[in-house]
């Protein structure tokens, strides 16, 4: 996949791009030499372009328009410090702009845009034996509260089955009174929702008093175990959560069966 990057401050972006390993990427930097950019775009097939909006000699939006004229399928990402909004973009390029990244940007946002350009869907990896943790693109997912993390673990453990509010409360807040538990449940749901939105991995359908997990694009050692790809449970399941005992029995049974065979 070939992309071009047009920006005054090259240094920072270069650092970020070098960190991204799992996407096959060929990139080329340009300062503000308009003729060279257009020439390059005409000779090479480009998947995407990262453009600054305000540059001394060229206007990013004008440049985007030129690039779209050369190749209608090119995907544009604006990288800007100013306050450009999606809805303010002119119509003829709006369809090609997939994202606007504001400075100072994070690796995540660059990676997200690259993934959209490469049409590669992100995969969430969950580690459920031992202590629980989730990773997206090799970065650890930071949950903003321990209970929202636990709630997500529970959803994963339920393996695609829906989770009602009352179920969640009996698992996670067994000794709290109902009203207090409901508040804590909603807090955990909001935080989980917010974290998943931040990493743009919307795998949970948040309905009223009901959560449903979409298992596609989730890689998880527990699922590997259930499918038989992973033979034995070497560590205890979700060791830090009390309710994991309910699942531990089943895992034990499966292990026993496998051993017998």
């Amino acid at each position: 996949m070939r992309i071009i990057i047009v920006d005054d401050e090259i240094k920072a972006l270069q650092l970020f791009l070098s960190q991204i390993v799992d996407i096959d990427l060929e990139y080329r930097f340009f300062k503000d030499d308009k003729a060279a950019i257009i020439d390059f775009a005409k000779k090479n097939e480009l998947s995407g372009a990262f453009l600054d909006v305000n540059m001394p000699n060229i206007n990013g939006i004008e440049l985007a328009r030129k690039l779209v004229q050369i190749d209608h399928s090119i995907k544009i990402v604006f990288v800007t410090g100013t306050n450009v909004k999606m809805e303010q973009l002119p119509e003829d390029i709006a369809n090609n702009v997939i994202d606007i990244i504001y400075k100072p940007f994070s690796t995540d946002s660059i990676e997200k845009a690259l993934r959209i350009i490469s049409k590669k869907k992100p995969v969430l990896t969950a580690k459920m034996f031992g202590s629980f943790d989730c990773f997206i693109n090799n970065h650890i997912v930071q949950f903003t509260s321990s209970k929202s993390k636990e709630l997500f673990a529970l959803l994963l453990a339920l393996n695609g089955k829906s989770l009602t509010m009352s179920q969640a409360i009996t698992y996670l807040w067994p000794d709290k009174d109902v009203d207090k538990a409901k508040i804590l449940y909603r807090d955990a749901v909001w935080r989980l929702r917010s974290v998943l939105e931040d990493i743009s991995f919307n795998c949970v359908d948040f309905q009223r008093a009901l959560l449903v997990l979409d298992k596609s694009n989730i890689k998880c050692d527990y699922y590997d175990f259930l499918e038989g790809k992973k033979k034995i449970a070497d560590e205890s399941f979700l060791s830090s959560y009390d309710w994991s005992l309910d699942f531990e029995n089943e895992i034990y049974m499966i292990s026993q069966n496998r051993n017998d065979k």
Partner: protein
Amino acid sequence: MKRSLKRILSNITCLLLLSAGSLFTIFFFGNVELSNDFKVGTRYVTLFAVILMAIIFLIELSSQLLNKNSSKTTMLLSVLTLGFILSSRDSINMVAYFGEVKYPIVYDLLHSLFFFTAMFVILFFYCRDYQLDSKYFLLIGLVSTIALFTADVFSIIFDFQFYTALIIMSLTLVIYFTFFFISYQKRTMDNRFVIIGFIFFILTGSYIASSSGVYFTNYPLGLESWGVIVIFTLFLMIYADQIVRMFKKTYASQEYERRIKELQSTILMEQINPHFIFNSLVLIKSIYLTDREKGDRAIDLLSKHIRANVDVKGGKLLIPIEEELKNVECFVELANMQNNEPLNMVFNIDAYDFMVPILSIEPFIENAIKYSRIQGKEDGYIELSTSETDNHYVIKVSDNGVGFSKEELAKSNSQGIKNALSRFEFLLRATTRVVSMPNKGTSIEISIPKAGR
């Protein structure tokens, strides 16, 4: 329930009055032996009515040509009323003085045509302008109007006007129930709605009187002319209403724009808090010494916080509640990084998908952190909750901090909170309530009416 009963009763009363009025007119006028002088006098009244209606028609026509947004309903009604009076028996009476009327039946047929078309226009006006959800009403109205018109034409041709009154009464019922249905569904009826309702009553009443009256008794001469003169005044009322509304609208929009500009500048002034930003920067510098990833996180949070503030400058006033909650979340996380004792913040979010003014919840949290002194408390917390009732979304921010007495509240209530509350009130017509008790905590409740209610 009580209210709907009142509505039904008042509607039935109106219907009875209409029928009684028609019958009274027919018999009262019909039994009077008309003198020649009376007939001559009526001639002038009719002429007067025709001229008035022609003036209205000209006004409507010119406003239609000059202003494309003007209503077609009133124009159609004015031309139909003009036709109505020109083909009435009053007109026959008027024309008879100049010469012989050769085919009175043509007058009657035209009269019927104008009447039924006007009825349908009114029906259409009610259905369209008041967004009556059911298309069936329009269909039933169209079919029954055509059917009744056909029946009326037959009764005129075969001189069988005995049933005409009954026929028209049934059309009246169709339109009446549309009227009733709308007024029942939508709580607000504007002046135009009522005025056109009156025009409808007058047209129906005089048509019943003129067509059935002939059969029972004599024709109540001059009745329709007087009816049209009343319709003329009703049109004047529509114009007055329009003018008043226009003035109100321009005034309101000017006032609105002024307030919005004022709001934008106040949000800007108070929200960009340099103290907080510099503190954050110092903090980030120190975090980077030990934990690079945490430093990145802090920079992301700070830039999100600043961006939310900059968005106000972009003219955005309302944002989805989810976004505002994220602003709060990022503010709290950043604030927690600055404080040794992290704040216990609970998001009790039970309602999503509604709009709030930008940066309108954050000031409450900021205030609670500053004044409630919950951070020193063992079980201190701030709870932010959203919930939903049938008609409202409710946002509640409460803490169990030190609270204020009433006097303190009035004095110390920061400008930021006042502005945020007034933005809720002004932009969303929300009602707000601040309750604070010393040593028990403060709670702020905002209830936002759902749109379209």
